[in-house]
Every structure is written in structure tokens, then in C-alpha cells.
């Protein structure tokens, strides 16, 4: 059993890897990489040579290529002590054309070009872009020199996979942070140091708080292990997909917080999220009032759930409702096959199957609106009522589907020989149903349960859009629209993992329900 499961999980992970690899291959190798700027306002403001450089910088940031500007190269030489400050100042000045460069500059430019061309880089010199015949450069028209080298997709894939899970450690913070190490406290300083609330704090780590408790579900939180699914370019710029999906939304929530300096204030700052930001304390006098070290980068606490949170809440309620409705209805339809109830149920199933989902979601919305239910999601004034319509809209089609299959499985079983034999043995119809038919018909349904529960995490595009739910359902479509490749890959990975997991869990459940299925090799 264990051996089989381990091999199933490994094979599942391999297939996830293949899927992500294919997606990365498609969007990084076959798609024009300029498309990522489609929704970027900064890009359209950049002009002339600066635009080229901006593109290079962004491509480097999003993993397309390695980019080395000439100035960085010189700075590197300077820091290694190979040149002095004077030479640096002389060498870094580029003239409008290579021919016009000073001797020192020419010298180092050649050295730069030679060194990086040997490494396989392409060296690019952009001539100064002047206004008309004058010597003045246009905006962003300064001459540029840089080297760049594409990163092969397989390397990207490898970097991506190995970077998915990162563990914080005390050597992460750059610069002088004092004594590096972890401390454990029973009294979290955020709560004033008197309330019992254990926490693990780090110095030298990226996050200050590695483990802590608060009053938000699931009450115990950690920052030690982080999941990185890929940086977003335009959907939520510069933020990781995992963060985008799990960060809380809505309006700020103010609570009483004790800052490291001892200042107590009503604030939305969530000190538990503090991350290291080198030099931030020195450069920002405002922060010196609150903080004593460079862990000043905090995010804010908000009232609402995360995107994933909203999607999952609605999804899981819909799944529960669907099963609660579909199981008794499906059974009733099968037991009274071809009678009134069965025909009514069939009409409903046909309606849901035939009518496009958009149409009946709007139908439910308008019916619900007439009944006075909220038809739009409002994070500022949350109430349970606003969940009703989205949940119903999601549950009703799922119910139809489940009813259809349950009815079908039950009728198949009812025609089984063992049912006839049980009847000939004098069992009543009720007993036959309870003891035999229901259990047998349940087996294929059991397999689908994990998929529907985990599927709730992916969100529902149309329902969420109609009811303005800030959920995760539209993340992928938004990302595709905006050419946000990082998000596309990240969400693909997430969906693929969900699918693989639900199939494996479904198989395990089925083996528990059906004695004929075992994970051990044949032979008793």
C-alpha cells in the first residue's frame, strides 16, 4: 500500500512537472516575449534607448535572460579592487558613438565585450540618440552598453522547480544585522509582551516572525517555508502568485499593536509579516519612531479573506449543498424510475445541461434579487446572505450532474443479478436498496469527492464574475489576457497539483469502499 502510494505520488509529480514544462516551453519559447509589456504602463512611457534597457531589466527579472550593463561590470571591477575610482569614473562615460569614446573607455569597453562574448553573451552598444543635429540627447537617448544571454527553457524550468519551496534561514539577510540566530518567546512582543502567545523570531532571516499565533484562521502561522509559484508581471506586479492567491483582501483592520520601539498604536500594520529590508531604517526617519532594526517591511491586515479563501468558502458550501441535495434526489429518481419524480428530475437535469451556465446563473441572480438577497459580493459589509446566491448558482448544476450519475449507477446496480438473487431470498426492496444497491452505486461517486472538494479551490470563473466575488477563479483568465506568464505557469502548476492529488486521494477512498480494489499485488 505505502509502496504503491509513494510510486503513485512520484508519478503524479512527474506528470505535473511535464505539464509545467510544456506550458513553460509554449509561453517562454514560442510566444513573443515582448507580449509581457502589453499591459505595462511603465513600458509605454519609456522612450528610445531607455526602453531597450527597461525591457532587458524586466526580462532579467522575469527569468528570460541574464543581463549585465557595462556600468555594473565596471562596478564589479571596482569592488574587486582591479580599478580605482578615478578609472571607473573615466571608463563609465560613454560617448555618442563608439568611435568618439575616450581611450580609457575604449579600453574597458573592449575588455567588457571580449569577456562577455567569450561567455556566450551578446554585447549590444546603443548609440546616443540626439535631438536633430544638436549634441543634446533625447529623453532616454543616452548611449548604452550591455551584454545579455538567453536562459534556455530547461534551465528556467529547473530554476523554477527548485525555487518553488524556499526555507528561510539566518543567512538570508544581506549586510550587518548583528547577531544572527533564532529566539523563542512565550510572550509575543506584538501583543505588548504580557499576553501568552508563543512565537519564534529570527535575526538574519528574511522574515522576522517564523512562527506565531494570532486570531485569524488557522490561528497558527509560519513564515519559515514559503511557496513561490512565480512572479506576476501585470496581474499583481512583482508579487508571487501564491501570495496573490492567499493574501487577505478588503479594507484595513486596525488593532492595538506594540511596535518594537515600545510605541503602542491602533494600526493596520501586521508586524508578523515584517521582512528584512536593508538600510530601510537608516534612510527613513519616519520608521525610526517604530522600528529598531531593518525588519521594517510590513504588510497590512485586512478584513476580508484571500482570493483562495473566498473561492474555497463558496466552493465547499456548494459542494456540500450539492451532495446533500443530489444523493436523496438521485436515489429517489432511481427508486421511482419513470414515475413523476424521475421525470421531473430529468427535466431539471436536461435544463441544466442544455442551457448555458451564464444564462441560468443570471436567472438565479434575478430570482434571488427579487427575493431580496444580495446579488453582489461586498467585502466591506460582509454578511452570510451574500454567499447564498453564488453558492446556489454553483450547487445547482453540480447537483444535476451528481443526480444524473447517481441515478444511472443505481439503475445499473438494480438490474444486477445479485439484486434479483437478494430479492429471491426474500429481502425487501428497502433492504436491497440500503444493503446492496446504494453501497455499490456509491463506489464510483466516492472517487469524485476529493476532486469536487479540491476543485472548490480553483474557483468558478463565471459565477465569481457575475456576483463580483473577489475569488481565484478569474486569476488564470486575467493572466492570459494580460500575458502575465509567471501567473500562468504558477496557476497551471497549482491546478495540476490539485488534479493529481484529487485523483490519488479518490483512488485511496475507492479502495476503502470497494474490497475488490487493493494497492497490494495480487495473491493472498
Amino acid at each position, binding site marked *: 500500500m505505502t509502496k504503491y502510494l509513494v510510486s503513485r505520488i512520484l508519478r503524479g509529480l512527474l506528470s505535473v512537472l511535464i505539464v509545467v514544462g510544456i506550458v513553460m516551453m509554449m509561453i517562454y519559447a514560442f510566444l513573443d516575449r515582448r507580449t509581457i509589456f502589453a499591459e505595462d504602463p511603465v513600458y509605454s512611457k519609456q522612450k528610445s534607448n531607455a526602453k531597450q534597457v527597461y525591457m532587458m531589466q524586466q526580462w532579467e527579472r522575469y527569468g528570460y535572460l541574464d543581463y549585465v550593463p557595462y556600468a555594473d561590470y565596471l562596478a564589479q571591477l571596482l569592488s574587486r579592487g582591479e580599478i580605482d575610482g578615478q578609472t571607473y569614473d573615466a571608463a563609465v562615460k560613454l560617448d555618442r558613438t563608439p568611435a568618439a569614446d575616450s581611450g580609457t573607455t575604449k579600453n574597458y569597453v573592449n575588455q567588457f565585450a571580449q569577456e562577455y562574448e567569450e561567455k556566450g553573451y551578446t554585447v549590444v552598444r546603443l548609440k546616443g540618440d540626439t535631438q536633430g543635429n544638436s549634441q543634446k540627447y533625447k529623453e532616454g537617448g543616452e548611449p548604452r552598453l550591455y551584454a545579455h544571454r538567453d536562459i534556455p527553457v530547461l534551465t528556467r524550468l529547473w530554476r523554477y522547480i527548485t525555487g518553488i519551496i524556499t526555507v528561510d534561514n539566518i543567512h538570508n539577510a544581506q549586510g550587518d544585522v548583528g547577531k544572527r540566530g533564532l529566539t523563542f518567546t512565550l510572550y509575543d512582543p506584538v501583543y505588548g509582551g504580557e499576553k501568552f502567545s508563543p512565537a519564534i523570531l529570527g535575526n538574519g532571516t528574511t522574515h522576522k516572525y517564523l512562527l506565531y499565533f494570532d486570531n485569524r484562521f488557522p490561528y497558527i502561522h509560519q513564515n519559515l517555508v514559503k511557496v513561490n509559484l512565480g512572479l506576476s508581471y501585470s496581474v499583481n506586479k512583482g508579487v508571487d502568485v501564491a501570495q496573490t492567491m492567499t493574501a487577505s483582501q478588503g479594507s484595513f483592520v486596525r488593532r492595538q499593536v506594540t511596535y518594537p520601539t515600545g510605541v503602542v498604536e491602533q494600526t493596520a500594520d501586521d508586524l508578523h509579516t515584517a521582512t528584512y529590508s536593508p538600510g530601510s531604517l537608516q534612510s527613513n526617519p519616519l520608521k525610526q519612531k517604530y522600528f529598531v532594526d531593518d525588519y521594517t517591511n510590513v504588510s497590512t491586515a485586512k478584513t476580508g479573506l484571500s482570493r483562495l479563501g473566498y473561492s474555497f468558502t463558496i466552493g465547499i458550501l456548494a459542494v456540500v449543498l450539492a451532495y446533500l441535495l443530489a444523493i436523496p434526489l438521485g436515489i429517489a429518481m432511481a427508486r421511482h424510475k419513470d414515475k413523476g419524480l424521475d421525470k421531473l428530475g430529468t427535466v431539471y437535469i436536461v435544463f441544466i445541461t442544455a442551457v448555458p451556465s451564464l444564462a441560468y446563473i443570471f436567472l438565479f441572480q434575478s430570482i434571488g434579487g427579487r427575493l431580496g438577497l444580495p446579488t453582489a459580493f461586498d467585502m466591506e459589509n460582509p454578511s452570510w446572505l451574500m454567499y447564498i446566491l453564488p453558492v446556489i448558482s454553483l450547487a445547482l448544476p453540480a447537483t444535476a450532474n451528481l443526480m444524473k450519475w447517481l441515478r444511472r449507477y443505481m439503475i445499473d446496480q438494480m438490474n444486477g443479478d445479485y439484486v434479483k438473487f437478494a430479492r429471491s431470498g*426474500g429481502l425487501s426492496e428497502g433492504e436491497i436498496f440500503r444493503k446492496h444497491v446504494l453501497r455499490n452505486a456509491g463506489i464510483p461517486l466516492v472517487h469524485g469527492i476529493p476532486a469536487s472538494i479540491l476543485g472548490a479551490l480553483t474557483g468558478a470563473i463565471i459565477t465569481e464574475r457575475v456576483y463580483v466575488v473577489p475569488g481565484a477563479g478569474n486569476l488564470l483568465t486575467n493572466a492570459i489576457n494580460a500575458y502575465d506568464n509567471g501567473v500562468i505557469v504558477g496557476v497551471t502548476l497549482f491546478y495540476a497539483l490539485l488534479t493529481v492529488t484529487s485523483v490519488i486521494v479518490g483512488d485511496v477512498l475507492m479502495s476503502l469502499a470497494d474490497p475488490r480494489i487493493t494497492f497490494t499485488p495480487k495473491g493472498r
Partner: protein
Amino acid sequence: MEQKKVILSVRDLHVKFCVRGRILSAIRGISLDLYRGESIAIVGESGSGKSVFTKTFAGMLETNGYIDQGQLLFYGVEGTPLDLTALRRARDWNQIRGGKIATVFQDPMTSLDPIIPIGRQITSVILKHQACTKAEARARALELMAKVGIPEPQARFDDYPFQYSGGMRQRIVIAIALSCQPQILICDEPTTALDVTIQAQILKLIKDLQKEFGYTIVFITHDLGVVANIADRVAVLYAGQIVELGTVEEIFYDPRHPYTWALLSSLPQLAQRNTKLYAITGTPPSLYNRIVGDAFAPRNPQCMQIDTLKEPPMFRVTDTHYAKTWLLDPRAPKTEKPELIRNIHEKLLKAFHI
């Protein structure tokens, strides 16, 4: 057949089916008495109504079938005979099925619930019909499993059907059918799905247990070899009617109906080397239409004019032997049974090199 007590008396039974708005007459007036402790075989080709006939005893007709007329008098209960055709409610049938009349079906592979342990399937029927505790039911089930020839029943009690072979499963099916000491055991081709060696074992088991339990066997088959093995009496069914009824010796050695002749002639064991196997020509009549005359007439090589005009009555040959053919009418020309099935005993002995 002296002084046998009747257990079930079928009186002029007509069964009809409503199929897509048309009426199909599956059983067209069958009268038959079943005696306590006997084994009667019901033979006939596919579609002759063998299964439908026995399903009426157990109230297991498909939902579109109904008993049009006739009576099924069951003498297995205290007091006055019970007319099974009058049972309407499922609850009444549940008293008869399993407890009084049990059925063994053709395919042991599918007759058991695949996901319930064998032992529980037996005890659930025992608990249903007999007032006893779970422990008693278990003991009784183990005893039955041993009786039907399951080695180490204790160890196999909690096994699932898929862990049993086909023959073993049929033994379990028989154990379940016998668990409540039924008075009639309907065996609907119980050996068809088994291989030949297992067939013989199962037949022997059914016969042996009959001595102990004293039930009446109604054996449906189209295998005449099985009939010779197990039956005391044979009823030959054709197009929803009994065309010939007699003891097994009478049917094999002195058949009177041309259809019985044809059936016997089709025994592959009788075929000579280098000759074609005998096959009955034509197809059975459509039961949607009203049948005029003898139903077998169109396929009967000895057909007479009267066969096509008027349905023959049951002619008595002996006290136990009846046949429904005009050939037995005193006015009919004397017709001998075909050469192929004369001296059938010697021929069969020769065929099997006994």
C-alpha cells in the same frame, strides 16, 4: 408416482407482457402439479417460457409482465392453500421468497453482491426469515457452508465473492438459497455458466442436499444431459405451453410429441460420424400473434392438416405421461418416432463408450 403430496398446483396459467404497447403471450395456459420432494425438469428452447413460468412462483416477473389468468395454489403453508396469484403486496411475497420458494440463478459470478463478505450475505437472509441472534445465524451459515462443500468455512466466512472461484460461488448461492429451508428450489440453469467438471459436482450437491432438506426441485435447462442426471419428471415447453409431460424414462425412451422427438434428435451425442448434426428447422412462432392450431405445426415434418386448424388437447399416454399432439388421436395415422432416437439408450451408451 404413487400418493405424492402436491406442493404447488398450477392451474391454466396465462402470463402476458406489455412490450412497447403490444401484448406478448409468454405462457399460454399451463397446468402442472408439483409434488413434494420430486425433481421436475423444465426443458425447451430459448424463448419457450421456461424462466417466465418459474418466475411466477417467486413473484419475480419483470414489471411489464402480469398474470392474465390462472391460479398458483401453494400448499406449503398451514391451512388452506395459498393462491400466489393473489399476492399483490411486496411484503407478502417476502414471506414466500427465500423462506418457502428459493431460486438459484444461472451466473454465480454475478449472483452475489461483490462488496459484501460471503458470510454476511448468508446471515442476512437467515436473519430475515428466522428469529435468531447474530451468533446463531453465523453458526448456521458456517454449517451451511460446510454442507455445500466449502473447505474451512470459518476461514472463508469473511472473504469477498471475488476471492471465490465460480464453482465455489455457486455453492454459496445454493447455501443462501437453502439457508431458510425452502420447500421449492427453483434452479434456473444453475450449471450453464460452469465448466463441465464443476457442473457434475453442483448437480450432485443439489441432489444430495435434496435428500436432507426434502425440497422440490424445479430445474430449468436446455441441456438434456442434465435432465437425465437430475430429474424425476420432465415437462417439455414449447411456445408457452407444456407439449409433453412424463417421467424421465418416458420422455427419453417413449417420447410422443414431434417436438420432443426433434429435441432428442438434436442431441449431438447421437450424431453419426460424417453426417450433419440434426437441427430443428425454422423458428418458434411469434408470441405477439394469436396462434392457430398446434404451435409446432410449421416446423413439424409430420404435420397434418388438423395441426394447422385446431389446437390439440392433452392426450393421456399413461397416468404420468401426457402429450399435446394430434398424433395421439385414434383417427391419426400411425407414426413412428424417427429412426435416430430409437434405441436411444444403446446409442447413448455407445456414444459415451460405457
